[in-house]
């Protein structure tokens, strides 16, 4: 499948760089093009890693929330076995909302500290 997704994104970055370097361009337009190029670069560098990251994060967050515990009654919240990016994003948002709710109800202590450690590791792992 040519051009590949990466080739198309790399092509867009190259064209935007050319537009940025046109001397007659006003600073305002250059700023717009630069912002667009940075967005495309970020997408190019992360799109292929987004789904595996979300699947792993969903599994870790669900475990942190105890959703894999048969006694918790929350099995319906377990990570769906899907390769669909939109579904993984939606599920991730749902789990992160539940984690937010959990944080608000937790006092100072090891349980909350564990959530903090999880969130810090997630910041480093997030490819997007």
């Amino acid at each position, binding site marked *: 499948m040519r051009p590949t997704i990466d080739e198309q994104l790399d092509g867009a970055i190259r064209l935007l760089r050319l537009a940025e370097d046109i001397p007659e361009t*006003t600073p*305002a337009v250059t*700023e*717009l093009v630069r*912002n667009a190029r940075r967005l495309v670069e970020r997408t190019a560098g992360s799109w292929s890693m987004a789904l595996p990251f979300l699947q792993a994060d969903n599994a870790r967050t669900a475990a942190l929330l105890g959703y894999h515990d048969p006694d918790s009654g929350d099995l319906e919240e377990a990570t769906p076995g899907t390769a669909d990016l939109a579904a993984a994003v939606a599920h991730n948002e749902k789990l992160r909302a539940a984690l937010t709710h959990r944080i608000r109800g937790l006092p100072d202590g090891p349980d909350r*500290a564990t*959530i*903090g450690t999880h969130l*810090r590791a997630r910041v480093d792992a997030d490819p997007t």
Partner: protein
Amino acid sequence: MTATTTTPATETSRVAELLHAFLASQPDAAGRIVDLRRADTGRSRNNWLFDLVGDGSREPLILRTDPLGGLIDTNRSVEFAVLRSLESSPLPTPAARWLDPNGRALGRPSLIMSRLPGECDYRVLRNPARVLDERIGLARTFCELLASVHDVDWRGLGLSATLTDPGPEAARTQLNHWATVLRTDQVEPWPELEYAIAVLDERAPLSASTVLVHADFKPGNILLDGDRVSALLDWELAHLGDPLEDLGWVTQPLRTAEHTIPGSWDTADLIAHYERTIGTRVALDALDWWVAFSALKTAIMQVSGLRAFLAGRTEQPYRPTRRVLSTVLDAVLEDYT
């Protein structure tokens, strides 16, 4: 602040037309609008420079208009009232001239203030065009300027008519304010920031005194005429609170490049010079809280910016960055190992 850029003639004409009609309705604004141009490069700011030329007079002015979207949503009326009060203070601030509070005349809420001489250099402390001694001198001057903001007699200037004194609960007041901003502006859950809010809420220090807080003190908001400070600008976030809030903002790791000089002026030098200037010791435990809060505030501003970008209200693709999020969490993580 004073750089200008080429702007489409139609946009300049539109602003000129609105400005002309607005100033014509002000009894003390006689004169012609001359040399109108957009300040700063790019489209992310809404500051316009112009001169008002009358019989034998020429007044340099700046029109500051609410952007459609950005990192922060502030009130031009409050900023105008603060600037007007500060005209009687020793601080180098621009004179507030005219206000369009609801944007009926100028399209968006706007204020017009005097334009002071000088140039802005965000990274002046690391600018190799200035010799090291000069940069260290500027670092000391900036520190003294911050102390002079905190020394302002805000009661005597009547600022309590505009700004609320939070009393000893300044830290929790600011934390609650920014937590509200987060929960209003977020387009997705942010457990990282909620975690920081929960920890900071438990550790919030009481403030020892209430002062005028600038809340965005940085070289980028200072105009320099040579090595002399000619203006301290951007009072849109100013409020009453704990002086350590400003000190936390300038000593936070995310701002190191703006406020320190490697090997010559580090955070400890800044704090020591501030202590010498104000004549009291800084409570370092409380300062740590404000440093962590500053990173959190930066992250929440990015959350607001993301919302504005997704809604098409700004061309700046803001988002909470890895650097900011990791700085926030590193400052608040609990250790139970």
